């Protein structure tokens, strides 16, 4: 039991401490230059990377956002959970679009060799394109949509980037359905619809959920990029606006928040995934 605690609690904490101390070591520090009378002449930052805020500064500066996570002081000055919530809502919408398009596309790719030959090269070209590259195209596409253009562009980017893992995993899953199961369906003369709902979809579910998990990760990556470029309020938008406002502590704070939320989303999805793997 002791050993167990050591493995999952002490060792990770040691790792975090090491990284924090390295960060604190290279980060800058504010000092005050005083004259003989003790009056402050100027304040300046010293250290290896003078402009990098240190651990204490980051903590004290972020505290208001953590203490009142749902506060709304202004458009770009809100509690961190409120920002995260905005981002999550947008991700959820984009992710839903990605799944709605991705799953049928994956099934077509898995079922039809002709379809695969037609579209697979195209998919392989589009897949590695970064969210940052899709967003301007999205803005152009929805330019005439009025004030909501930024939202549509962000959804477009999330859906397009987050779709691929679902598409490819579903396709692999469909191709990996054992011939025996298909033979059962053939002997029983199942209709196409029954073949799909009774055999293909259940057999593909574990693969699909792996795709869903990876898609969610990419959607979360894309949202930050989309918010940064469109300036929407949210975890990524907050990061960019604090960079422009020269409050560097909040950049680090945002990065940590984005990372933690991403981790939580991934853990939640793996729980769901494990459930589906267990039942099949």
């Amino acid at each position, binding site marked *: 039991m002791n050993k167990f605690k050591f493995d999952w609690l002490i060792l990770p904490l040691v790792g975090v401490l090491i990284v924090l101390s390295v960060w604190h070591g290279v980060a800058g520090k504010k000092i005050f230059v005083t004259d003989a009378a003790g009056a402050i002449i100027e304040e300046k930052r010293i250290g290896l990377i003078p402009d990098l805020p240190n651990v204490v500064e980051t903590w004290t500066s972020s505290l208001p956002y953590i203490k009142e996570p749902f506060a709304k002081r202004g458009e770009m000055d809100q509690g961190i959970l409120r920002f995260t919530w905005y981002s999550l809502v947008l991700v959820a919408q984009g992710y839903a679009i990605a799944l709605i398009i991705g799953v049928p596309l994956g099934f077509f790719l898995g079922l039809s060799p002709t379809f695969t030959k037609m579209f697979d090269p195209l998919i392989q070209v589009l897949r590695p394109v970064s969210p940052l590259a899709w967003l301007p195209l999205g803005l152009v596409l929805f330019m005439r949509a009025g004030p909501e253009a930024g939202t549509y562009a962000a959804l477009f980017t999330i859906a397009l980037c987050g779709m691929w893992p679902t598409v490819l995993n579903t396709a692999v899953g469909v191709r990996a359905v054992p011939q*025996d*199961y298909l*033979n*059962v369906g*053939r*002997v*029983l*003369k*199942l209709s196409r619809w*029954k073949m799909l709902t*009774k*055999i293909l979809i*259940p*057999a593909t*579910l574990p693969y699909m959920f792996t795709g869903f998990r990876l898609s969610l990760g990419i959607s979360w990556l894309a949202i930050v990029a989309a918010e940064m470029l469109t300036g929407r309020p949210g975890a990524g938008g907050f990061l960019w606006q604090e960079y422009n406002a020269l409050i560097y502590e909040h950049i680090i704070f945002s990065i940590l928040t984005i990372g933690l939320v991403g981790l939580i989303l991934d853990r939640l999805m793996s729980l769901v995934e494990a459930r589906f793997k267990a*039942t*099949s």
Partner: protein
Amino acid sequence: MAFLDLQNVSKSFGGHSVLTNVNLSIREGEFVAIVGYSGQGKTTLISMIAGLLKPDSGTVTLDGTPITGPGPDRGLVFQNYSLLPWLTVYENIALAVEQVFPQWDAPTRQAHVDKYIAMVKLSHAKDRLPKQLSGGMRQRVSVARTLAIQPRILLLDEPLGALDALTRATLQDEIGGICQSEGKTVILITNSVDEALLLADRIIPLTIGPGATLGETVPVNLARPRNRTELNHDPEFKRLRAQVTNQLLSFNSTRQTTLTRKLILPDILPEDLDKPRVHRPPRRLSEEKSENVTIA
């Protein structure tokens, strides 16, 4: 007129002839066992009867109608059970029953499924998933699923191949009993001569490929019900077993063996185990500078 009729059926895969000129005719209600070595086209043959594969040449007809595709009139019990792992025992069978008897109402179907689950003695496990069942139980479910669709002919493709000897014996008796009471036409594919003798009315050996075909039929005129312990002392059983076994062995003696690959032996020399064990790399033939040859 034969019930199931195969005329000059041939099949090859990628230029390799698997079966050539297979002729087989089976009467209604007959239990035929096809015995042969592994990998000689037994499964190919039964897949063609089931309609999962199309013969390259020749015809397969069931009751005068040519077989063009798979269908529930021929119940195939798969070698590897092929139960759908996300459905329970009951659901696996119910899926088949719903598909084949859509005209029945729900209570009729339910009673029908329950009847066949009871027939294979699995009523206590009907809500379990296949992964919670042993191999023998899974094969029972598979048999029940096939019988429940009431096929006109039952195709058993090495149904007991993956089971241990004891389970195998129990299931042989059960399948024998069920087939006897249902009076079904059955084709059993097996590699066990004893299993064939225990169950079948007629044994047909499959010769060895490439281009395997069916050998000479051996009728089994042993009285039913057959008891495996009594059979072991039956002179007729012994004679038949010798006959079928010899026939199968004679195919093997004509098999030609050709070496198509160069054998590459591992580049390693034996260790002297009398010497104390120390950590050292293995001796390699290619690295030996000189070889000591002792002449006695």
